């Protein structure tokens, strides 16, 4: 069978299943607030993007989805007077502030296990995070094959929780004004829709993105250092301080008290200093005053820089800043399917985020399908683990089969007509 035919069969089956999902779940589709002022976009299964659509009511949106069975559904974070007009004349009136947290932007060890890249020029391949240039030939034409697992989704979730906390304590945004959606793939979107943020331009949003990531932090301005470039002891940062000053202080405190030898070494501390830290921990624990900052004397400028750097990078929230600054961004609509995985994008209540497990809760299909799998690492869908596979026919639960089909790692096996 030709490759083209296989591709067509794959598309047809995916479309079939998506269509069935939308037929039976249309009542759950969750339009964004003020839907009539948003632009909607649809990626059709043939790869064509239909944009500049708008709907006054959810019914219209649902019947459009039912009729076209798109592989992905998006809406604008922005509000327009005329959402259907071409870009220049839509008349932008505001936009939610959005944050995109994706495992793509977070370094995790599991990537070594499940991600691969290959060079389109010299055919070199490798495991883990895709390098910027091919280490073999130095060119930049690399294709990547990324997967997700419980670990990286948990890490992404940690980032979301960090972000919620920061938006709440520093920006004063309360939970009612934050919406968290699982993207149906490797991450989460967080929307803030207070009146305060809606009219901000992209420069202002850039400032917020930089704040969230700790970009441009200046230790002198935050009063972290004394004149010798060492951490200030007197009048220095306290864990109760607001904003980055307190955040850095809390993290340093945590590092100095809790980091194990290996972590301290990874920060760049020499063995002698690690010994000092350990000794002083004991001293401090037996005294009442739980302040290690003051006790770590003799640390040089260089050491403090390393510790502070680590503290900042641990506190920094891993968002894709481009998404936050783009005031015309289209973003996935919850309760629709993600064409890259067949998983459902969905809203998660902030109170339930901690125990939310997308690999169990975002699967939608029932039944079984037989597919031929070219190659796949071990993966989890619907709470079950599968694989690794190479060049085999398998009868899998539909959710797992669709997942592989969407990733183009398998194609449907035609059942013989009896």
């Amino acid at each position, binding site marked *: 069978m030709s490759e083209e035919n296989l591709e067509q069969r794959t598309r047809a089956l995916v479309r079939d299943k998506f269509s069935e999902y939308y037929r039976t779940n249309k009542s759950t589709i969750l339009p964004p607030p003020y839907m009539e002022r948003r632009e909607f976009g649809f990626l059709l299964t043939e790869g064509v993007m239909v944009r500049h659509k708008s709907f006054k009511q959810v019914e219209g949106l649902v019947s459009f989805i039912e009729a076209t069975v798109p592989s992905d559904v998006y809406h604008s974070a922005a509000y327009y007077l005329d959402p259907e007009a071409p870009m220049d004349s839509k008349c932008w009136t505001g936009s939610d502030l959005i944050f995109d947290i994706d495992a793509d932007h977070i370094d995790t060890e599991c990537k070594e296990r499940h991600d691969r890249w290959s060079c389109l020029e010299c055919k070199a391949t490798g495991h883990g995070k895709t390098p910027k240039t091919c280490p073999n030939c130095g060119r930049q034409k690399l294709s990547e094959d990324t997967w997700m697992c419980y670990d990286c989704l948990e890490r992404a979730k940690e980032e979301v929780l960090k972000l919620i906390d920061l938006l709440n*304590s520093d920006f004063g945004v309360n939970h009612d004004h934050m919406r968290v959606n699982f993207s149906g793939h490797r991450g989460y979107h967080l929307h803030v829709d207070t009146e305060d943020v809606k009219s901000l331009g992209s*420069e202002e949003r850039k400032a917020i993105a*930089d*704040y969230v990531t700790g970009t441009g932090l200046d230790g002198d301005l*935050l009063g972290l250092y004394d004149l010798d470039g060492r951490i200030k002891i007197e009048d220095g940062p306290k864990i109760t*301080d607001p904003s*980055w*000053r307190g955040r850095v202080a809390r993290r340093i405190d945590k590092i100095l008290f809790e980091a194990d030898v290996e972590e301290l070494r990874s920060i760049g501390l020499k063995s002698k200093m690690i010994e000092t830290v350990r000794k002083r921990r004991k001293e401090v624990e037996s005294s009442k005053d739980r302040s290690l900052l003051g006790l770590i004397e003799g640390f040089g400028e260089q050491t403090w820089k390393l510790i502070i750097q680590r503290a900042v990078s641990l506190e920094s929230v891993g968002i894709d800043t481009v998404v936050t600054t783009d005031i015309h961004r289209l973003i996935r609509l919850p309760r629709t399917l993600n064409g890259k995985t067949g998983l459902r994008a969905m809203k998660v209540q902030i109170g339930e985020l901690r125990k939310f497990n997308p690999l169990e809760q975002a699967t939608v299909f029932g039944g079984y399908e037989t597919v031929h799998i070219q190659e796949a690492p071990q993966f989890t869908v619907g709470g079950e683990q599968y694989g690794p596979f190479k060049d085999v026919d398998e009868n899998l639960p539909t959710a797992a089969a669709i997942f592989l089909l969407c990733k183009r790692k398998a194609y449907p096996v035609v059942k013989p007509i009896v």
Partner: protein
Amino acid sequence: MSSERDKARYPFTSEAAEFVKSLNIGVDDLTSEPYNLILKRAEQRIRQALFKPDELSPQEQDPNIEIPSFPTAIMLMAFVDSENTKRRYAVAESKSFSKKLKDEEPEKVLEIAKRTFGWRIKHPDDKTGTVDFLLHFREYLTNSRNMNELKWKLTNRYLKSGYIQLTKDETARLLEEEIQKKILEKTKHPKVEPPKALQEILSEINGLASVRSTSQDLVQTFSIEVADMPQCIKRMLDTLSSGGRLSHIGRFTLTSFLINAGATEEDVMDFFKTASDFDEGKTRYQVEHISGGRGGKTRYTPPKCDTLRTHGLCVGPDELCKRVKHPLSYYKRKRILSKRSVAKPAQAPEI
């Protein structure tokens, strides 16, 4: 409650505006006694703002003239054709106001910020420190966007429950931006013919404005043709040369554009020297970096139109813009087109 002295000092406040309203002076009154003194003072304001901004200072002894002279000057400026001149005026007035505000009691500053501009600003609970005010981050962000120093960067501020800690001086500086925006807003062209009574004085002011036409200066400074530049770049040039500020990406775009269009590093340095927050070392570093001077590395090109659009720097495309994706290709095409049309120099280049 604000005194007449306050209104004369800060004629942009809502109290001052109400006061002027209550005087009930018509435009036609301005040319006859005793109101012609208001018109005179308004003209003086404009002259000072454009040519000797340091001399701009309130004449508190006669509030009945001083207070209405401000809205009168603004009305005059609205009829002026050059955006550049308007900006120069707005910059000078707002700077002189903020200088005064820095010497005021915190209460006064707070009152103006709240009542005239609706800022969410308050005193901190603990008044012992160096912090005078807490300001909502939204008002902070919209007024600090053109400030490039690290200390204005949100990341380096104390931000708690949506509020930012500020000193009085910093607050006055942020108010300066707010006042400047207000003046620029109010000097937008009213799209009607100027009143007959004002035509004489207006032609005089328009004459003043052309004395220092920036784009003329520019054509001489650079070996490149300003008339062929896209609107976005012209706007950046105008902003800088009239004392306004550019965001970081704005500076980057402008510098890389000029370098790529053939300006030398020295040309660009000269031009930036006139900018209000010029820092020689920093600017030189930037210019050299962008032109690939240091270590002879890559020369940077300006961002694509798409990117400029997301950053709000695209001014709104004209016909040629629709056919290009990059401000440099705009310039190159326009150059070719205008060379071809050298034969018919009927149209004056737009500024």
